[in-house]
């Protein structure tokens, strides 16, 4: 009984910062105070007129979409190689692809920034995407690999024996069965990229600011209700996203298979 009370208290505490953000975004005062006063949607109207935030949202959305496609596309062949084949150096390849998860994200950010400058690539949306692909592909590999692990390779072999060329056999026999893994990988990569601040802070330029970095950059100013409205919209958008994908992939499964981090 006491354990239940403790657990539910902890759950409430976990949700307090998010709930406080949403609650305060409706305040009628022009500064942030708790408890919020009154109720108005005024700050949402103001938030939707912040052109630079809309631009950042569109940029983040684009980067996350491209990242999701690339991470899944790059992750799938690696996952197939790791699960279906035993080859010398397999453990090393596996460790290599998991290393971006072990390295501190800040270190990857600094390494990429210095690298881009040394080879004079500079910061473009492509270099932002590259950074995001590096940190999301390991998740995609793990999620796709875990959906492949439970699969009987005999199914694909049967297709081959019936005369299908290798790629066709893979597309017709294996692909439909690992679709949940691919979906989960893409969703996870999308969310991780959309939320990413640590890599983006280093690779953003004044003209290329992702939404989380745009919000972060206001750290030295007093919190304003319109900013909380923007944060609330992002929270709402995340909740909708979870609700939509929860049917296809369970969020817990996402983190279970993606492992720590």
């Amino acid at each position, binding site marked *: 009984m006491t354990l239940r009370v403790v657990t539910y208290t902890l759950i409430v505490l976990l949700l307090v910062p998010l709930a406080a953000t949403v609650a305060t975004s409706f305040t009628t005062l022009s500064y942030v105070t708790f408890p919020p006063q009154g109720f108005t949607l005024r700050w949402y109207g103001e938030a939707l007129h912040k052109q630079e935030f809309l631009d950042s949202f569109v940029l983040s959305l684009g980067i996350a979409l491209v990242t999701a496609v690339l991470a899944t596309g790059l992750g799938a062949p690696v996952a197939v190689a790791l699960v279906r084949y035993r080859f010398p150096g397999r453990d090393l390849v596996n460790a290599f692809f998991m290393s971006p998860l072990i390295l*501190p994200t800040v270190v990857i950010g600094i390494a990429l920034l210095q690298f881009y400058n040394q080879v004079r690539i500079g910061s473009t949306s492509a270099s932002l995407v590259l950074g995001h692909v590096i940190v999301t592909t390991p998740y995609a590999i793990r999620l796709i690999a875990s959906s492949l692990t439970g699969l009987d390779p005999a199914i694909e072999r049967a297709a081959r024996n019936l005369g299908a060329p290798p790629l066709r056999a893979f597309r017709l026999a294996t692909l439909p069965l690992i679709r949940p893994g691919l979906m989960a990988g893409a969703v996870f990569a999308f969310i991780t990229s959309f939320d990413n601040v640590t890599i983006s802070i280093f690779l953003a330029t004044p003209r290329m600011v992702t939404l989380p970095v745009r919000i972060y950059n206001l750290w030295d100013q007093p919190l304003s209700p319109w900013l909380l409205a923007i944060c609330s919209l*992002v929270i709402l958008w995340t909740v909708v996203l979870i609700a939509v994908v929860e049917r296809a992939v369970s969020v817990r499964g996402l983190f279970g298979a993606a492992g*720590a981090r």
Partner: protein
Amino acid sequence: MRVSERLAPWLLAGPVVLFFVVFFAVPVALLFASSVERVDTATFQVIERFTLHNYRRFLFDRFYLGVLGTTLRISVLVTLAALVTGYPMASYLQRAKPRERAALMLLVVSPLLVSLVIRSYGWIIVLGPLGLINGVLSGLHLVSAPLKLMYTETAVVIGLTHVFYPFMVLAIYSSLQTIDPAVVQAAQNLGASPRMAFWRVTLPLSVPGIVAGSLIVFALSVSSFVTPALLGGPWVKVVAYLAWEQNLVVLDWPFAAAISVILLVLTAFVMYAYNRFVERGWFAGVFQ
């Protein structure tokens, strides 16, 4: 085995390996190379190609060592806080009925899907001078002036515990799941009270989960950057903040690289311990 079978994994993974070498391994290697250079911070010209100057500068300076100390202290506190609050959550999840468990699990994990920045701003509302905690305290007339919570180590510890909490819960939960309920039942049949069965049976058996969760949370805390920057500001500097500052404000890239390498070595050390103690089954033989 046919040649094509032997080549197949490399045909599949090879191009991606190459991509990761160029855009991940090479940048990290260059970071090491850059960390032993020395630039003149006035002209940004490289004045020495190979020197340990940057490392000496960090490791023999009171200020930088102080920042390292702050970082380690914060990380230890975050790990303890996550452990103490994570264990009850994990035990409850393990005993809960499937439906309740699934719902609670979703609530525990879902904050991970909201950007760090937004979660940190949420804490500013809770901890700020006009925030929730001060509002409640002054409403109850417990304090005359608002408590200073923001931009303190306490704020950073609270924020980081919140961010890394799910990892601790999942680690302990998965180790609790591996415990055979019959073992706990046996202890109780032999006369142990539920409390005693917990302390003498369940808790020791869940040590691998505790160690795994603690190492993950500690490693993540040591290298965290965004949450300390937002909740601690320039007043609570951590190592990752120094690296950022040297790289983007001071523009002393070699020094930033050296700080990154120090951070990397620190987390590599923790991750090595993780591999050794947890994944290699260091505890496997102990509790058979």
